C-alpha cells in the first residue's frame, strides 16, 4: 500500500505565501533581484567591463546637463609671425628626420573623447555609470560576504553559549564583552593594520568585528529554546546535542538569523563605504561605492557633482530596497506575527 503521500504546506511555503501578499515587499524584492542581475552581468564582464577606459573628456558632465562651454580662447595670445629658426643652435636637429621615420612605423589613433557621458565622467574621463555598476558588484559582494562571515561566527558561538551555558557560556560572554568594549572603528583599524589591503581583508575585518550583535540574539534564542519541551522530547528519544542544536533548534530560530543577516548586509555596505573613504578599503585598481565617494570629495570643490550623485543614488536605492525587503521577510517568517493575518 503506497497511497500518494499528501504533503502539507511547509513553514517556508507558508512564509512565501505571506510574503507574496506584501506588495511593498514584492516591489523591493524585484529591485534587489534587478541589482543581483546587474552584479552577475558585471561579474561576467558583460556590462561595465571597460570601466577603466577613458571614454570622455576629463570631468565630462552628464548628458542631460549638456557639454561644458568651450574654454575662453583668449587665455594666452598665440604669437603671430614666422617661427624662429633654431636649427642652427639645436643639438637634436640632425636626428629629427630619423625620429620622424621611426614614428611613422607606429600608428597612433586619437580617440574621439566624448564631451558628455550618460552620468558624466570622473577626472580621468572614465564613465561614472560603468564605475557605479562595477562598484555595485564590489560593494554588494563585500557586504554580503562580510555579513555571511559575521552570521556564521555569531550563530556558532551564540548556539554554543546558549545551549551549553556554564563555563563555555561564561568564556564566550567574556569574549563578547571584550569585543564590544573596544570602540568599533579602533578595532577595524587594528585588523586593517594586520591584514593589509584588499577585498578579502575588508570582508574579514567587517566579519570579525560585526558578529557580536547576532551572537547575543542567537544566544538568547538558544537559551529560550533549549528548555522547551520539544527539545527535551528530542533528548528523550536520544538525539545528540549537535542534532538538537542544529536540526531542532536552528530551524526554529532561523528567522532571527535571516533578518539579522540582511540587517548586517546593509550595515556592512555602509561600513565598506566608510573604510574605502578612509583609504582602508578596496585597492586603487578596483572601484566601489566607497572609493567613488572618496574621489567625489575633491571633485565637488570644482563643481563636479555627478560622481557623488551616482554613487549615492545606487547605494540609496539598493540599501532602501534591501532594508524594506528585510522587513517584509521578518513579517513573513516570524511566527509571532502570524496572528495579524
Amino acid at each position: 500500500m503506497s497511497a500518494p503521500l499528501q504533503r502539507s504546506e511547509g513553514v517556508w511555503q507558508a512564509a512565501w505565501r505571506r510574503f507574496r501578499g506584501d506588495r511593498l515587499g514584492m516591489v523591493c524584492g524585484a529591485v534587489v533581484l534587478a541589482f543581483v542581475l546587474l552584479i552577475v552581468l558585471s561579474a561576467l564582464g558583460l556590462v561595465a567591463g571597460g570601466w577603466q577606459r577613458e571614454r570622455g573628456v576629463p570631468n565630462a558632465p552628464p548628458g542631460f546637463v549638456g557639454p561644458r562651454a568651450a574654454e575662453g580662447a583668449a587665455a594666452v595670445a598665440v604669437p603671430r609671425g614666422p617661427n624662429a629658426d633654431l636649427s642652427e643652435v639645436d643639438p637634436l636637429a640632425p636626428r629629427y628626420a630619423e625620429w620622424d621615420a621611426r614614428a611613422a612605423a607606429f600608428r597612433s589613433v586619437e580617440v574621439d573623447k566624448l564631451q558628455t557621458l550618460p552620468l558624466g565622467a570622473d577626472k580621468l574621463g572614465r564613465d561614472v555609470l560603468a564605475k557605479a555598476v562595477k562598484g555595485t558588484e564590489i560593494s554588494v559582494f563585500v557586504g554580503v560576504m562580510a555579513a555571511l562571515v559575521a552570521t556564521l561566527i555569531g550563530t556558532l558561538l551564540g548556539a554554543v553559549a546558549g545551549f551549553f551555558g556554564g563555563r563555555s557560556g561564561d568564556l564566550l560572554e567574556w569574549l563578547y564583552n571584550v569585543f564590544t568594549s573596544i570602540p568599533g572603528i579602533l578595532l577595524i583599524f587594528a585588523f586593517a593594520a594586520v591584514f593589509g589591503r584588499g577585498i578579502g581583508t575588508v570582508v574579514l575585518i567587517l566579519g570579525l568585528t560585526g558578529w557580536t550583535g547576532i551572537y547575543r540574539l542567537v544566544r538568547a534564542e538558544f537559551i529560550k529554546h533549549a528548555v522547551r519541551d520539544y527539545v527535551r522530547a528530542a533528548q528523550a528519544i536520544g538525539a545528540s546535542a549537535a542534532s538538537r542544536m542544529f536540526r531542532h533548534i536552528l530551524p526554529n530560530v532561523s528567522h532571527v538569523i535571516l533578518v539579522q543577516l540582511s540587517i548586517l548586509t546593509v550595515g556592512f555596505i555602509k561600513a565598506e563605504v566608510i573604510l574605502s573613504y578612509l583609504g582602508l578599503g578596496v585597492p586603487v585598481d578596483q572601484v566601489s561605492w566607497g572609493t567613488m565617494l572618496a574621489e567625489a570629495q575633491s571633485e565637488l570643490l570644482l563643481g563636479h557633482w555627478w560622481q557623488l550623485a551616482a554613487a549615492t543614488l545606487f547605494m540609496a536605492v539598493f540599501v532602501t530596497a534591501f532594508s524594506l525587503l528585510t522587513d517584509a521577510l521578518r513579517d513573513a517568517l516570524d511566527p509571532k506575527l502570524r496572528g495579524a493575518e
Partner: protein
Amino acid sequence: MSPKLLSIQDLRVAFRMGRGTGRVQAVRGIGFDIDEHSSVALVGESGSGKSVTAMSIVNLLPDNAERSGRILYGGRDLLQAGAAEMRALRGREIACVFQDPMSSLNPVLPVGLQLCEPLRTHLKMSPRQARERAEALLAEVGMPEPRRRLDAYAHELSGGQQQRVMIAMALACEPRLLIADEPTTALDVTIQRQILELLATLKARHRMSLLFISHDLGVVGEIADRVVVMRHGELREQGAVAQIFEAPRDAYTRALLACRPNLAGPPPARLRVIDEPMTGDAAAPAQRAARDPDAPVVLEVRALAKSFWLRQGLFGKREFRALRGVSFALRRGHTLGVVGESGSGKTTLGLTLLRLLEPSAGEVRLDGLDLRETRALALRRRLQIVFQNPYASLNPRFSVGQTLVEPMAIHGIGATQAEREQRARELLAKVGLDDSAFGKYPHEFSGGQRQRVAIARCLTLQPEVLVLDEAVSALDVSVQAQVLNLLRDLQDELGLAYVFISHDLGVVRFISDEVLVMKDGAVVEQAGAEAILAAPTQDYTRRLLAAVPRGYVAPVTP
C-alpha cells in the same frame, strides 16, 4: 423572582481576519439574563466563545472584533456606549478577575499601590483613605497580615494570595457584577477550594452578581445558580444548576457530564467521549479487566533524590531538595499515579527518571539493570515521556512524518527509510490518526491530535515504560477522555507500564492501579488507587481529596 441586572440578547461577535473581508464567527447569537444577587456560570470547552461573550460585556475585546445584538444593563445598551462611558462603568460597576493572577498584577509595583489606584480614580479618595480602604479590602478577602502585604510585590505572594489581591481589586469599588474568567484554573485544588468559598461569601455579603466562566462543570456546580452551556459559539442549554446536573436536556451537556472521570462510583473501563454518548447509553461501560498482580517489576526506583543549588548572597549556595528519597516499584502493564500540588516535585520526578535531569542520589532500575551502568542511548529507548503541553512538545518545523521517523533513524530501527515510514504510518493508525496526517505540520492539528502524535513518537521506540507528565491536563474534557481511552487501549495491547503524573485526582483514579501522593519532594502516602481514595491515612491526602470539586450536590431536604 429578582429583577434582571444584565440582559444579553442575540449577541454575535465576529473577528475580522487578515486584510480581506474574512470573518470568524466566535459567538453566534446567544442570549441569557443575569439576575441581581445571583451567579451565572458560562461553561464550555476551549473555542466555545465563553470568554469572548464575557469580555464583550465590558468591551475588552481586541480591535478586530465586531459585536452586534444587545447587552442591556441598567436600561442602557452597552454595545452603543462610548469609550468614556465604558471606562466609568468598568471597575466601578462591572469588575473582572482573570485566570492568571501572576500576569494580571504589575510586577514592579507593590500590590497596595495597585489596589489604591481604582479607589483614587473612581472614588476620588485621598491617599490615606485609599490605603486604609485597601487594607480593609485585603482583610476582607482573607489575606493574613493585610497591613504588611500592602507593601509586598506580586512575586512575594503565592498564587492563591495573588488571586485574592485580584479579587480585592475587583471589589474595591463595590461592583454590582463581578466577571470571573476561569479564576481558579491556574491554581491547585486546595487553593481553588478556598477561592471558590471566598467568592461565594463575598457574593452573599456584598449582594452582587457573579458571572463565572469555567470549563470545569465540577467547579460550576458548586458556585452557580444558573448554568449556560456553550459550544462553538452557540448556546446549547441554559437552566438552573439543579436541572442542568440532574436532568440535562441537551445531549452535549449530558456528554460533558459523562466524559469527566470523577471520584464517585466504580471507575469505568472506558470513559465516554462527546460524540458517543449523544447516541444514547447503548454500550454500558464494563468493569475493567483486573491487572495481573504478579507481573514482573519493570521499573524500580530506590531513594531517588534531586537537589538544585540556588545562589544566595554573593558567593553562597543553598540546597533546594526537589526530590527526597522517592522509592517505588512498577510492574509491567500497571500504572502508577503520582499526585501532589504544584511544587511537590512531580515533574522533577518524571525528568529525573529519564535522566533529563541528573539525579543527585538513588538508583533507577529498568528490568533489574541499574541505569547508571547501561549506556544512556539504550536507556532512552525503553523509557519515554509525554509532556503536558502538546503545543510545545512537537517541533513546529518538522512534519509529523519527520517527527516519527527521526527516533527510529537515531536508534536504527527499521532497515530503510521506506520501512520506517511504513512503521510510522502504522503507529499513526494505532493512535487514531489517518494517513493524511503523515505529511502535515503540528500547527494543523488540535491539542488532542498533537498529543496523539507525541504518544506515537514515544511508541516508535517500543518503550516499556511511559512517563506521562500531566499529559492530559491541557486538554478539553472531551478530548481528555479520548486520550485517556487511547492510553488504556495501548496499555492493554502493548503491556506498557505508565507513570502517570497529574494534579487531577479524578483522572488519576481512572487510570491508576497504585497512587503515590507527593508533598515537598517526598512521598506522603502510597497505596492502591481505590484504597487511597476510600481510606486515606494521611491528613494531606484527605485535604487533597476534600478539595476536589464534586459538581452540584442537591441540598439535603430536612
